[in-house]
């Protein structure tokens, strides 16, 4: 690659570690930086550098395949290894790019929602959260995953609780998330402990080799796998374990909701793929059973049930939160087919949904910023009072439903095709039905916004009051991205295809069918 030869060689070797270390150190610096402006600038620069690092890594992966970095210079089974491959590179790019996009939006939004003295530390918590998510994805060591899961979780609880200056219920939501998140982390770490007991190593690649040699291992490995799926299931809001999500999304500061909705569950989903398909694999019967039966059922129930719940919510952010749970169901459905096309569809939807949901929450945040509204009923006439914001919302909303020429259509088409190939005709029906439900809950918001008149205050109609340009830019970037992917999805599908090939090696294709 030409671009790679232009970059300093130091970055090519150490960029993997820089991606995580830089935001961690900058996050620590925020505790002592008093000025909000400086804090925002540093945060923005740091995340920009991270995005460039992630981009470089993605190019390197295309060029050279798997990258590995030895932390502390120790050889892998002894030291911690960082690994970037076709599966993790797109997720890294997604997380860092979404952070940069959110940060554009943050400067006005945080001014309105966070206490002045605390804004610098707030950005610090955000940096640590982002670093935690990046660390979870980039690491090749099972216990290091847990450490960074904790790094991101602890800062996420704080970030959610910071919504308290807007709505006191944020504290309750953060508390619920804290308790459930800790239970999830406990399940996860017990699972890791069992894997260590079975294999005697924490390095993922080493673990995978040893488990292969043991032909799936004993009951210890089976229980370990179940605990890991449950622990990650809580983090990624798999259907019956999703209770923390609506509250957290609905009451966190807008900026936090946008970032979490588009990255946090995605990082956990990535981990599920990583653990289920690369550490364990489909030659073990219990993996096939858990994924193709339990996860399948939970995915389908989640898709339908969460979509129905979304219809009955009064708060737009809760509508979108329940919709997120349903979308996690889509991704898990693709995963549970255990086929190449299913995993590709799953991965495509993972990326698309991040853009779509990010765009929707960006628009909703801007509406609160101007009018202090989040309820569906208060959206009256927003097409007239905030036309640009509302059109961005509409585009992302249509994409969520899966209207042709949008990103949502691409991923749903992929998923339906994969279901058909797998012989699950009924799953195509479920996807259609869930999309109709999405049409109902998004349509309900659009109807209020487009066909009702703006509210009146003392007999005078509320005037047009568009969101500031710095908020409009990120939401339009995501809305346009939705359409671009809808028209030409080749690059996303290619990236997903490469990731899926990594998950199911050729000799495994057809296992578990």
């Amino acid at each position, binding site marked *: 690659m030409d671009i790679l030869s232009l970059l300093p060689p130091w970055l090519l070797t150490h960029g993997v570690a820089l991606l995580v270390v830089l935001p*961690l150190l900058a*996050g620590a610096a*925020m*505790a002592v930086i008093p000025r909000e402006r400086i804090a925002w600038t540093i945060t923005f620069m740091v995340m920009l550098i991270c995005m460039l690092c992630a981009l470089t890594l993605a190019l390197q992966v295309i060029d050279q395949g798997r990258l590995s970095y030895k932390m502390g210079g120790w050889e892998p*089974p*002894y*030291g*911690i290894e960082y690994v970037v491959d076709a599966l993790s590179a797109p997720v890294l790019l997604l997380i860092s790019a979404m952070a940069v996009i959110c940060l554009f939006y943050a400067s*006005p939004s945080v*001014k*309105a929602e*966070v206490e*002045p003295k*605390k804004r610098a*530390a707030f950005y610090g*918590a955000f940096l*640590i959260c982002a670093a935690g998510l990046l*660390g979870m994805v980039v690491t090749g060591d099972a216990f*290091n995953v847990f*450490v*960074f899961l904790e*790094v991101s979780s*602890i800062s996420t609880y*704080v970030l959610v609780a*910071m919504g308290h*200056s*807007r*709505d006191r219920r944020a504290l309750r939501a953060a508390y619920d998330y804290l308790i459930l998140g800790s239970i999830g982390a406990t399940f996860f770490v017990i699972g890791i402990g*069992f894997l*260590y*007991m*079975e*294999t*005697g*190593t*924490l390095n993922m690649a080493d673990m995978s080799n*040893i488990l292969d040699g043991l032909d799936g291992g*004993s*009951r*210890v490995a089976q*229980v370990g796998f179940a*605990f890991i799926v449950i622990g990650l299931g809580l983090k990624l809001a798999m259907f019956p374990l999703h209770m923390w999500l609506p509250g957290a999304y609905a009451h966190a500061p807008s900026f936090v909701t946008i970032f979490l909705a588009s990255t946090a569950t995605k990082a956990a989903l990535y981990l599920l793929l990583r653990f289920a398909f690369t550490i364990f694999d489909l030659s073990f019967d219990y993996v096939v059973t858990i994924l193709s039966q339990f996860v399948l059922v939970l995915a389908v129930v989640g898709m339908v049930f969460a979509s129905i*719940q979304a219809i*009955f919510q*009064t708060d737009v952010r*809760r509508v979108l939160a329940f919709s997120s749970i349903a979308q996690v169901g889509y991704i898990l459905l693709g995963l549970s087919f255990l086929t190449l096309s299913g995993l590709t569809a799953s991965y495509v939807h993972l990326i698309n949904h991040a853009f779509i949901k990010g765009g929707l929450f960006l628009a909703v945040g801007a509406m609160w*910023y*101007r*009018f*202090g*509204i989040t*309820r569906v009923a*208060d959206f009256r006439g927003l097409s007239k009072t905030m036309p640009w914001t509302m059109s961005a919302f509409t585009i992302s909303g249509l994409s969520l439903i899966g209207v042709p020429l949008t990103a949502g259509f691409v991923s749903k088409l992929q998923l339906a095709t994969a279901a058909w190939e797998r012989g699950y005709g009924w799953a195509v029906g479920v996807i259609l039905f869930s999309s109709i439900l999405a049409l109902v809950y998004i349509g309900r918001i659009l109807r209020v916004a487009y066909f009702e008149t703006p*509210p009146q*205050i*003392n*007999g*005078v109609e509320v*005037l047009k*009051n568009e969101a500031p340009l710095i908020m409009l830019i990120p939401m339009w970037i995501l809305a346009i991205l939705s359409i671009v992917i809808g028209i030409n999805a080749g690059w996303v599908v290619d990236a997903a295809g490469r990731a899926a090939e990594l998950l199911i090696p050729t000799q495994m294709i057809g296992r578990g069918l």
Partner: protein
Amino acid sequence: MSGHIILDLGLISMLLVIAFAIIRMRSLFAVVMLQGVYSLVCAAWFVSLDAVDVAFTEAAVGAGVSTVLMLAAMLLADRQSDEVSLRRQIAPIIIVIASGLMLFYAIGDMPIYGDANSPANSHVGAGYLDKTAKDIHIPNVVTAVLASYRGFDTFGETVVIFAAGLGVLLLLGLNGNAGKWQACPNGVSIGLGQSPYAQLGEDQPKVSPKAEVATNLPKEKKTIAKKTSQSKGRPRKAVPKGDVS
């Protein structure tokens, strides 16, 4: 039966008794104290399992500092916990029993405690023992693993602790003066009397497109918010929960 096993069994049964006592207690003061006791017994048990470093940490953190911190937190809250209705206990009990059964299911295939040939003791674990003597030359292998071989994990743990401190800083403040600032939209609130600043528009019927920057507002807005709260009771409480209707 060797004395070691009797000691272990004794300590484990004490842990069980304390755990049940904690669950049954209603006085939070007693619960906090019992948690300290639990940690101390735990630490003793870790010593008997030859995990001295872990025992030390458990004694210092669990029995020492966290008891004081829990007491300080309890002073701010209630002294008694409320009764939890039996109906709400059913689901957690089922979950606990199910996970317990899963753990028991695995026990049969676990290596015997202290087995030198178990994977955990033979693969990487044994490697650390050899490598520390060769690479680092310090007697305490635990320190070598924590600070050097897996030093990056410890860096992450340091950040976890830092994040906890940062969270306390953000939510409480070191001088106990946080949490009074209120967020407000940078425009005019048009919510249906539900939002705390719902009546903002009363004096200014038209929305000024260039509304003031939010940071300048709090003082003015607070007075207005007070007025509304006097006239409308407590508007925040009036917000519907937004659950499934």
